[in-house]
């Protein structure tokens, strides 16, 4: 991509005065975006509003803005990722930032470099934004304490994946026109899912009603205390819901056996047309990807263009990440 392309100086979405939304520029009261837990609806909606603008920008032939020109973003991924990393990379490049991707598997650990050393090394290079994914819960928080730049959690262990919850919320909002009062069923491997935790906190904060549907072995023991209704059967769990969020069965994270077989799991918990019939007729199907077709979701349902919004989620993911970068760098650079 040509980083010297002429900036879209007049693009409304990059007007920092906030004139494009007719509201004063929103200042996010946190340096980093590490978790949804602790955010209020008043902090969440401005991000979604701004993201909605970026959707329009992304659909134009010239998608480039100069908002973050001169800023550097590093994607620091300690775990494999294609869509989240690409999404952040596109978001940053479309805003004119320079992007570096660092994929660190266990190798730096083998070399003896600790997470803290990695953080301090990067910090010395004067980054503006660090997007971090790590297989351990809390690792991004730990790293954020050691750097001066904006840190965005791109998913840490089983803890949170805040931009995924934001893009899910935007997807629902654009299709349903509201979030409050909606019935949302999150189904599948809740135990190993940071997406589920972020979504539960976000949906609760904006007044949706959340159910989780899974066998007890795939639910954390105290999940009920996060403000959700707990169901163990799809037939009751999906009854009358507006949104069906399917989660990937994370076989690679499992220590020991949580379900007897994939075949049995699909039989009872895989989303099929028959099970979907328990939801409202206009219920949307969502999945954070990547999907295990035939494990948690039947292809026929996943590819149903009338019901499935899975590709919308991917598209809006870029816009949401642009909004996050925009809002968080206001804090870091433009505050008086």
């Amino acid at each position, binding site marked *: 991509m040509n980083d010297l392309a002429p900036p879209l100086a007049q693009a409304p979405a990059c007007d920092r005065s906030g004139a494009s939304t007719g509201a004063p520029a929103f200042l996010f009261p946190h340096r980093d975006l590490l978790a949804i837990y602790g955010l209020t609806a008043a902090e969440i909606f401005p991000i979604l509003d701004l993201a909605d603008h970026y959707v329009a920008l992304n659909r134009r032939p010239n998608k480039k803005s100069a908002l973050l020109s001169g800023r550097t973003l590093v994607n620091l991924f300690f775990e494999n990722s294609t869509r989240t990393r690409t999404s952040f990379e596109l978001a940053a490049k479309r805003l004119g930032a320079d992007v570096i991707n660092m994929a660190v598997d266990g190798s730096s650990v083998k070399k003896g470099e600790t997470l803290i050393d990695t953080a301090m090394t990067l910090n010395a290079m004067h980054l503006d934004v660090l997007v971090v994914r790590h297989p351990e819960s*809390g690792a991004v928080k730990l790293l954020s304490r050691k750097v001066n730049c904006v840190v965005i959690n791109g998913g840490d262990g089983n803890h949170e994946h805040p931009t995924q919850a934001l893009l899910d919320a935007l997807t629902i909002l654009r299709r349903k026109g509201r979030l409050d009062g909606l019935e949302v069923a999150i189904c599948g491997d809740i135990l190993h899912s940071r997406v589920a935790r972020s979504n539960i906190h976000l949906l609760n904060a904006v007044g949706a009603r959340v159910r989780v549907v899974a066998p007890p072995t795939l639910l954390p*023991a105290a999940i009920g205390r996060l403000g959700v209704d707990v169901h163990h059967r799809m037939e009751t769990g999906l009854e009358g819901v507006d949104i069906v969020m399917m989660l990937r069965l994370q076989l690679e994270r499992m220590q020991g056996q949580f379900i007897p077989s994939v075949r049995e799991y699909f039989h009872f918990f895989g989303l099929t047309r028959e099970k979907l019939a328990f939801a409202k007729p206009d219920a949307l199907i969502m999945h954070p990807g990547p999907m295990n077709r035939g494990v948690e979701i039947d292809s026929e349902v996943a590819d149903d263009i009338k019901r499935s919004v899975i590709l919308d989620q991917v598209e809006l993911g870029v816009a949401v990440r642009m909004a996050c970068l925009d809002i968080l760098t206001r804090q870091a650079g433009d505050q008086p």
Partner: protein
Amino acid sequence: MNARPRLRALINARLLDPATGLDSSGHLLIDGTRIADFGPRLFNDGLPPEAEVIDLTGACLAPGLVDMRVQIGEPGNEHKETILTASLAAAAGGVTAVACLPNTDPPIDDVSGLEFIARRAREVKLVKVFAQAAVTRQLGGKELAELGLLAEAGAVAFTDGTKAIADARVMRRALNYARTFGLLIVQHPEEPTLAAGGAMNAGELATRLGLAGIPAAAEVIMIERDLRLVELTGGRYHIAHVSTALAVDVIRQAKQRGLAITCDTAPHYFSLTESDVGDYRTFAKVSPPLRSETDRQAIIEGLADGTIDVIASDHTPQDQDSKRLPFAQAAAGIIGLETLLPLTLSLVNQKRLDLMTALRALTERPARLLGQPLGRLTIGGPADLVAFDPEIAWRVDETALRSKSKNAPFDGLAVRGRATRTLVDGRTVFALE
């Protein structure tokens, strides 16, 4: 050493001896390394003219604390703690005897390991350092170590340290064989398959933080199994660092039906809860994990009614590199030698525990379990003593702690009560500035 006066008079103290219930103002006379006499009227006829006089006005004088659960790090992890730094910490905490765990590198599972500890302790010569030896070779949980030979060489108890003796047959054999010599088997009560991968207490916070939890059941399941084995064998059995209400209940019932078992807890289990983990604070990672407020209250009740016999620090030094890691990867452990007395006295100040019960759990009870003539004021007994002021208010400051590692989640905590002078064999090894 000959320059030291033979006689020392500790005067105007509140004498406390939990072994006899003595609580009166008075004085104590030390002759060399031994207690020569003590009592309220001791110096009615005047002080011996050649005695060195130490005026303790306002302070309590009690037997030195006996801490039966201390990890040191020597041999093998001297960067975390050495016998010297642990001894300095112990002395500053009013602890005059420690019983260290065998989970060193190499583990203390043979006589030479015991001799090494004894020699290093003699060289350091501050507090008394006893060693617990391994129940199984290499702490492997399979083959019994030479319990008899180890006992003969000075091992005061037997434990696999921070590992549970998980195999029921091995535990049965250990309890049974140890009866030959009347040896104490100390269990780390945790069913390992239920705790595997867990980083903190199973509950709402673990759910939210996305950390694998260790259920309270992992503790009580192991205890209940062991109680059956104790009934089967009649062995001497002690449960280390009880952390859950479930375990307190089961132990209470077992004692009520006459089973001669004992247990201890550590100050963090009655001072902190899982909420102290907060935002992935690895200093609050400990094994077993910090539990719920209900559990904390049950531990205090267990101490008050005598279900829990002993308070031990469970001192576990961890260096920065072991703690500055993502929570699940960070090492477990809290240092506790210097906070053992103040945190226990906090329960007394909160009127949750009476002073004598608290002191008994820190002195006479652990000394008796370890078979040592310590933890009591006895004429002719060793002059291992602590003078403490139960009223001094201070804040725990991790930088001021003597331990080589600073992993104390109590940093900044306001506490009341502290050791002002510690004597071992009549010699002052610590005096508060």
